[in-house]
Structure formats: C-alpha cells, structure tokens
C-alpha cells in the first residue's frame, strides 16, 4: 500500500493499529515498567527515538539486501543493526547530553529486546513503504507506544491505592486493564481508513 497518505499512516500506526494494544508488540516492558507515570513517558521517548533511527537503518539495509539478492539475511542483519544502533545511541547521548543520558540511561539497553522495534522494521519492509513513509510510520508507532504506556501507568498509579482481592494483584490485574484499554482503542477502528 505505498500510495497511502502520510496522515493515514500516522493515524493507523498510533491509534487504530496501536503497536502495543492491537499488535501485542513490546508487551513485556509495557507490563513490567509502566507503573510510574514519569518513567513511562521517558521510556516512551527513548523507544520512539530508537524506532526512528532503526527504521531509517532498516530501510537502507533492505535496499542493500535486495541489491545483493540475499533476503535470507534480513532477520539477522536487522537484529544486529538494532542492537548496535541502541549501543551507538547510548554512547552518542552520553557524549552530547549527560543530563538526558542520566534520565534515559538504564532504559536504553533494554530496548534491544523490545519486539516493537524489530516488528516495526519488518512491517515497513513487508508493506514496501518509501523513505518518507517509513519515517512517518516510525513516528506514529512511537507515539502509539508512548500513549499506551502513559495511559497504563496512570491507571496503575491509581490502582495502587485501590483495594483489590489478593488473587488479582500484579500481572493479572495489569492484563485486565490492558484488555479494557484494547477494547477502548478498538473504537478508533475505521479512522485511518
């Protein structure tokens, strides 16, 4: 669908087909980390940034792999590039802005094993997006992940004060909230067309 308008791509990636709530990508950190509003926001920012960089890299790799006719190397090179991108980004931020590094620091290495990043790289190649479309797609996906995390964190902060039966504490409760959020996001269906 390379003819999709940029706005449609953005809305689709961030609301209708939200990476966390509709595609189930990046669930582990979504359930594990998003219990504080502030960390959720920062983590979302870091993920969006890495998504943007690795999306651009994946676009380049795909061109190269098609050129040398070696599609079976796709997965291996994608994951290698994502891992090294995360490393590079970490070093770069450390050098340029130590304050930002301290804010993101611990979260950055974790992003390597976040399936949302690899998923984004795979989806954009499957859909055959152009360069600009890829960037917009990455931004939309990042915005979607951040939004889902922030919503989740806000709900969980409130839940800590609520009285719930012992059995439901922890992951089970988080999953039920995620389910309800997912139902809510279904309401956006048809928006992007």
């Amino acid at each position, binding site marked *: 669908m390379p003819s999709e308008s940029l706005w449609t791509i953005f809305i689709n990636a961030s609301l209708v087909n939200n990476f966390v*709530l*509709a*595609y*189930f*990508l*990046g*669930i*582990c950190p979504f*359930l594990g980390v998003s219990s504080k509003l502030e960390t959720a926001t920062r983590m979302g920012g870091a993920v969006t940034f890495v998504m943007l960089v690795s999306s651009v890299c994946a676009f380049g790799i795909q061109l190269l792999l098609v050129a040398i006719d070696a599609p*079976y190397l796709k*997965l*291996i090179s994608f*994951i*290698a590039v994502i*891992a090294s991108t995360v490393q590079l980004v970490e070093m770069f931020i450390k050098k340029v802005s130590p304050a930002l590094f301290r804010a993101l620091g611990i979260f950055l290495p974790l992003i*390597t*094993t*976040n*399936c949302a990043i*690899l*998923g984004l790289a*795979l*989806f954009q190649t*499957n859909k055959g997006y152009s360069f600009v479309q890829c960037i917009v797609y990455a931004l939309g996906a990042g915005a979607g992940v951040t939004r889902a995390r922030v919503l989740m964190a806000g709900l969980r902060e409130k839940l800590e004060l609520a009285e719930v039966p*012992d*059995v*439901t504490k*922890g*992951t*089970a*409760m988080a*999953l*039920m909230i*995620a*389910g*309800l959020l*997912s*139902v809510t996001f*279904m309401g956006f269906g048809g928006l992007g067309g």
Partner: protein
Amino acid sequence: MAATSKSSTDEFIKGLWKENPVFVQVLGMCPVLAVSNTAMNALAMGLATAFVLIMSNIAVSSLRNFIPKQVRIATYILIIATFVTVVDYVIQAVSLDLYKALGAFISLIVVNCLILGRAEAFASKNTVARSVMDGLGMGIGFAFALFCLGAVREILGSGSLFGAQLFHDAFQDWVVMILPSGGFFTLAAWLLLFNWLEQRKERKAKSDEATTLALGKEAV
C-alpha cells in the same frame, strides 16, 4: 541455579509446571497474545518457539567456553536469529496458510525474552545434556500454555476447536475473544487461576503446619 543437585528429569519437569514460562514467569508475552486466536496457530507457534529454544540452548551451551563475556548477548541473539530464519523458511515451505496466519510473528521469535533468558540464565552455565532437557521442558511448557490460551479463545470466539464446529448453530460467538482484547482477558483469567491454586496450596501448607503444631502440643 543449583544445577548439580538436580537430576535432568527435574530440569525437564520444572519448565512444564512449577516454572512455566507463561503462567508463572510471564515471559515472551508478545507471541502468546498475538497468535493465540486459534488453537492451531497457537500450537504451531509454540512448537516453532520450542524448536528454536532447544537448538539455541544446544548451541549456546556447547559454545559457552568460547564466547567472550563482553559480547555474549550479541552472540546469543545472532545464534537465535539463525535458527529463527531456518524455522521461518521451513514453515513457509511446509504450509503457506500457516505462514500467512502467523505473519511477522515467526520472525519475532528472535526477540522473545524467554529464549534469550534461558540462554543467559541456564545454557551459558550448564552442560549440553542439561540444557537440552531445560529447553525441552521450557519449550513444551510454553507450547502447552499457548495451546491452553488458543483453545479457550477459539472455543469461545468461533465455537470450534482445530476448525471443527463444537456447538449448535444457535451458539453466539464471543467475537471479542478473537480480537486483541480477548487475548488479554483470557491470559488474565489463566493467571488468576494459577494465582488462586498457588494461594490455596500455601494456605493448605500453613494449616497443615498449624495442625501438626497443635497435635505436637497435645502430645506434650
């Protein structure tokens, strides 16, 4: 992990129930929720993951003395990615329908935290034989959990199991179970069941202790 005191059978059994990757450790959630909309998809995904897990456990444990500590995570990921590529092509060759149904999620086995977790926590410290047993147990436990989820979602969501109709025509499908939110709800329900069983066991152990204490006092 006190591996020396445990027999290989223990390593196998623990993955099935006591340390079940999905219900107890809550690892590798993305494929669990995404492809469990029918029992068939869930089972295929579970077996594919189990295969990658066993193979990467073998590779990592046999190479554990050669891999430098600093680059071990990157090495593990490359090993895993190799096996996932194999699985990806095999599924594409064997059943195109299945390949289309599972989509990008076969490739996403690479970033399944369960596999990397086992490589780091178990295979890198244990012998090949032990790692195979661990991979087998964890893999089957994972496939079993996926199947539980997929079966419930398919029965309630489309009134069938493995494509065979189960109910009378009058049965109204619970469409929500097939949609993404159904995955969250079903997994939450299974976790609730496991929590409840665990708590009941604890309570029972406590009350047993109390009775033995009381009996002991009476005897004195």
